[in-house]
């Protein structure tokens, strides 16, 4: 492995100072575009098991009703009803998954990102049952043979552990934006610090009416949607 | 009931005071070799009389007592012991391996009835063996000698001899310890060796050696001369006729008989052994067996076993000698513990081969006793079980309904032969009420009567009653739970020794031989209406009608 640049870790992180969030502008997100998905899965060596029950995915597109079931479906336009919504881990403020995990393999970082320790995970999938959004995937089989092109940007996982979107924490530490945000041709994804009132994401949320997935569950997601 | 035994209440109190632990006394801060040896009434056997030793040409005849300070050991006794030990280590792999292999795991510690009864730590089998092993290390293992206390070695002193005498006469060679030892170490073997060594310097037991001398001369332990022997048995014949109305007809020293029957002399002389003899006679008469009894080889038992291997062989030799002389086909042996240990494990090796005899076949059932095809000696229980299995006996188990029975697996038969099922099969066929004693006290885990291996002397009553405590305790259990009043055994010493043991611990429980019950149950041809068993006790349901 190449040497790690530790200069970015000179300061001990302050809990609660930063909270990363994402705003998805579904109006800009093209229905058949999967650039973000492709990029994310490639960079993170996510295996391609789509179409099977053993599917592993960090980010994907869902139907409007599927992604936002408790949002009102009455009298919506057909276009909205057929819109594809980008779905990924919400990195909840009150994540049920971290509460459920018996080994602290899933934990919430100082910067709001819900992260995982793949060496701790016992594969009990309690977190999968706990997540009300279906954001988690389990490695039902060995993922490595199913990675078409191995990338050296992120380690591979072994069979029997759960994985999910990590908001590209490995990129964030380098000061880079998440791969999905970086790869979006339409700039539909806005990523930023929710604790910074002057951040773009905060201004966008304030400026637009946004929706969240299942807000009634009290999880306080960090992903917002502009429908 | 004996001045040599403490009162039952006192002994119970002693047990009560030390429960739940087994040890008697406090030993913290003490090493086992510091624990003193104390001879008192009831815990030592009278030494052999000088004339007995002279008869047997054993060394160092003299008058002495265990309580004497000076045991008048012979000159160079240390050398005698050491040489004797070397010799036996050379001749017996068992002795050597047992000396070397013990890891002192303690599994055997609470398995010996003498330890359970006395609470004396040196009665733990591991400690009993250490009594010799500590000398063995000193004398034999050069490496261990360097670290004396570290390895538990010590010098051979008169106190060691006293200790040996004490504790190797508190081992009935029952082998229960070896059942639990992961290495199979058999303290009984070590006891045999130690007793042999002690005999080399004239430290011995009259109750063992006097019968040995008797047996050497007259053919039986009691010294019964031939005419007396016959008269005793004929007296039993009369008794059988009194009870059953049937006159049995045993023969003596008859050449040409098919089978030679050999049983311990206690069955001819003592209570309650004679009733078992009656059972034998009734059985043989019932099936019309062609047998004879020898006055020359009139002893099934072998107190030589408790003395030395040579003496064991010498006394045992008479069996084959007489069988050959009388021209019998095979030998049928009566109920005895140590007799059958000798017959099963030693006889063929010592005095065989017995080519002059034929492979045993039951004349009644045609069964070949293949397990005895070399020794050509069959156990009476195997013989009878075979008869019952083939429905050759007319039995009425109701005749033993006045008895509620349990069965004592005699140590030698249990752990020296492996005979568990045959006597139980017979017992279940001749009586209707049979209850096993607790599981950990029967079969291979059976407890000794506490008086075997020549420790049946009256002056040893204290230790006998303590040693028999575990067995008596097990009997008390079934007596309390199932109202058992009859203890059945197939050992002659047991019949003699369990009787006082039961009187001491379980009054009301009588001791029976297995074949006495067979005799009770046998429906004899031409018998009168029987109302009494062989002991002339009334049989339930068979009382005489008032009309008669």
């Amino acid at each position, binding site marked *: 492995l190449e040497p790690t640049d530790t200069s970015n870790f000179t300061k001990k992180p302050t809990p609660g100072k930063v909270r990363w969030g994402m705003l998805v502008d579904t109006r800009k997100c093209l229905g058949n575009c999967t650039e973000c998905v492709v990029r994310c899965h490639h960079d993170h060596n996510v295996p391609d098991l789509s179409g099977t029950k053993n599917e592993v995915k960090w980010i994907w597109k869902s139907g409007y009703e599927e992604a936002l079931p408790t949002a009102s479906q009455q009298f919506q336009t057909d276009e909205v009803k057929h819109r594809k919504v980008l779905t990924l881990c919400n990195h909840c403020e009150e994540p049920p998954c971290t509460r459920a995990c018996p080994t602290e393999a899933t934990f919430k970082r100082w910067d709001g990102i819900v992260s995982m320790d793949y060496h701790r995970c*016992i594969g009990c999938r309690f977190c999968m049952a706990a997540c009300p*959004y279906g954001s988690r995937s389990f*490695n039902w089989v060995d993922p490595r043979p199913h990675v078409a092109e191995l990338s050296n940007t992120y380690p591979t996982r072994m069979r029997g552990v759960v994985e999910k979107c990590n908001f590209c924490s490995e990129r964030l530490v380098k000061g880079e934006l998440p791969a999905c945000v970086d790869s979006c041709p339409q700039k539909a994804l806005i990523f930023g610090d929710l604790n910074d009132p002057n951040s773009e994401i905060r201004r966008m949320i304030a400026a637009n009416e946004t929706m969240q997935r299942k807000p009634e569950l009290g999880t306080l997601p960090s992903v917002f949607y502009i429908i | 009931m004996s001045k040599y035994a403490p009162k039952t209440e006192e002994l119970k109190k002693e047990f009560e005071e030390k429960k739940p632990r087994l040890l008697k006394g406090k030993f913290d801060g003490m090493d086992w070799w510091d624990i003193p040896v104390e001879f008192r009434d009831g815990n030592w056997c009278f030494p052999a009389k000088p004339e007995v030793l002279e008869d047997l040409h054993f060394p160092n005849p003299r008058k002495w007592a265990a309580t004497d300070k000076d045991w008048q050991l012979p000159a160079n006794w240390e050398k005698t012991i050491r040489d004797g030990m070397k010799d036996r280590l050379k001749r017996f792999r068992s002795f050597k391996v047992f000396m070397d292999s013990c890891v002192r795991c303690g599994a055997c510690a609470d398995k010996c009835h003498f330890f359970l009864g006395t609470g004396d730590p040196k009665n733990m089998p591991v400690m009993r063996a250490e009594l010799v092993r500590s000398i063995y290390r000193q004398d034999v293992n050069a490496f261990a000698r360097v670290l004396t206390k570290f390895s538990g070695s010590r010098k051979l002193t008169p106190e060691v001899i006293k200790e040996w005498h004490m504790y190797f006469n508190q081992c009935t060679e029952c082998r229960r310890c070896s059942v639990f030892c992961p290495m199979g170490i058999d303290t009984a073997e070590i006891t045999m060796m130690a007793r042999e060594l002690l005999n080399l310097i004239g430290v011995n037991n009259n109750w063992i050696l006097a019968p040995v001398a008797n047996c050497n001369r007259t053919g039986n332990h009691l010294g019964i001369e031939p005419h007396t022997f016959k008269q005793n048995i004929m007296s039993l014949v009369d008794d059988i006729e009194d009870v059953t109305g049937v006159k049995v007809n045993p023969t003596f020293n008859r050449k040409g008989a098919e089978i030679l029957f050999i049983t311990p002399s206690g069955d001819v002389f003592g209570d309650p052994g004679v009733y078992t003899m009656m059972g034998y006679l009734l059985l043989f008469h019932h099936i019309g067996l062609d047998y004879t009894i020898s006055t020359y080889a009139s002893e099934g038992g072998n107190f030589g076993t408790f003395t030395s291997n040579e003496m064991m062989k010498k006394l045992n030799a008479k069996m084959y000698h007489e069988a050959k002389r009388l021209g019998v086909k095979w030998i049928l042996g009566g109920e005895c513990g140590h007799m059958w240990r000798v017959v099963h494990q030693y006889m063929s090796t010592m005095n065989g081969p017995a080519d002059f005899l034929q492979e045993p076949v039951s004349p009644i059932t045609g069964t070949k006793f293949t397990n005895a095809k070399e020794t050509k000696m069959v156990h009476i229980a195997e013989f009878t079980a075979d008869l019952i299995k083939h429905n050759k006996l007319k039995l009425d188990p109701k005749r033993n309904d006045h008895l509620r029975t349990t069965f004592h697996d005699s140590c030698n038969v249990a752990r020296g032969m492996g005979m568990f099922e045959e006597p139980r099969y017979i017992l279940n066929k001749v009586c209707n009420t049979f209850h096993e004693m607790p599981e950990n006290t029967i079969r291979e885990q059976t407890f000794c009567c506490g008086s075997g291996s020549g420790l049946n002397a009256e002056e040893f009553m204290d230790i006998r009653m303590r040693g028999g405590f575990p067995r008596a305790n*097990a009997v008390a259990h079934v007596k309390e739970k199932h109202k058992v009043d009859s203890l059945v055994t197939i050992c002659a010493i047991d019949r003699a020794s369990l009787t006082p043991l039961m009187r001491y611990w379980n009054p009301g429980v009588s001791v029976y031989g297995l074949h006495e019950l067979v005799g009770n149950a046998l429906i004899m041809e031409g018998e009168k209406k029987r109302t009494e068993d062989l002991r002339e006790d009334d049989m339930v349901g068979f009382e005489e009608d008032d009309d008669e």
Partner: protein
Amino acid sequence: MIEKALKGGRGYWTWVAILLAVIGLGVTAYARQMTLGLGVTGMGRDISWGVYIAQFTFLVGVAASAVMLVLPYYLHNQKAFSKIVIVGEFLAVSAALMCMLFILADMGRPDRVLNVLLHPSPHSMVFWDVLVLNGYLFLNLISGWAVLGAERKGVKPASWVKALIYISIPWAFSIHTVTAFLFAGLPGRHLWLTAVLAPRFLASAFAAGTAILILLTFILKRVAKFDAGPEARTKLAVLSAYAGVANLFFLGTEFFTAFYSNVPAHMHSLQYLYFGLDGHGPLVPYMWFSLIAGIISVGVLLSPPLRRQNGWLIAACIGLVVSIWIDKGVGLIIGGFNPTPLEAIVDYIPTFTEISVTLGIWAIGLLVLTMLLKVAIAVKTQEA
């Protein structure tokens, strides 16, 4: 006393051989699962728990039901249960063991199981479930073994044994409560997100577990000539009947809450189970069978003349156990995952490997139960 389990007749060894064969099958299947991953099961990202957790849930109830013997016997001195208390305790041991085996089978990384203890997470119900299940297993095993050992020796058990038994009583309630909280604490799983889940778990546990105990008494009487007594059986039948009634009642309250409130999220799972949803209804016949069988069984158990007849009693117990197994195992787990968080309905079918592992674990549990009961009966009926 373990040696008691190493002796037996032909029937006993035949049964043990059958169990060992099934265990062999299960071990082989598990090896395959270990090698290839949980992908060999029918579970996927949508139905991420399957038959393993279903058995676990059911067996936690069976384990807890031993308290229905222990509690009356030790706290209320119901002598009728004196002979079969140990049976209940050992059934609890066997069931708890199976619970843990099913959890191990369901784990992606069983080799990291110690992480639960090395990195304790009090906020996680799984953490507590591991604790209470292990504790319950050892409480019942140690206390049952100690009581049996004391009985074997003919002495009174040590005082700490009673303490353990008393501790095991609330502990029994706790294991199923914690199991219920496993489910009930998850937002978004509307079928489970109910306050009634814990009492419903307990009711169904006591109903099914007690019924299993009744069936066990019949089996022991037939096979080992060990009869717990009609009084004990009657009391158990009554307990099972009322627990069954409670279970049905709770199910009814679930239906009312969901359908009367007409909240779609709450209705969807029940619709999927009992009536089908979006064209998917593979479990509908099973759920209705479970409901009807449960009602009939409870009816029989509530009827004194019927429950006094052994044939009816056995049938009712079997029906009740099957009913609750379907309801608690299959229906509850699958129904909880459908619809998925993304409003999809996915059908779950266990694979042969999954079923083999399940059978193997059941066989291990039955083997342990057989051996423990063999020891217990040998001690209780010892001739000496």
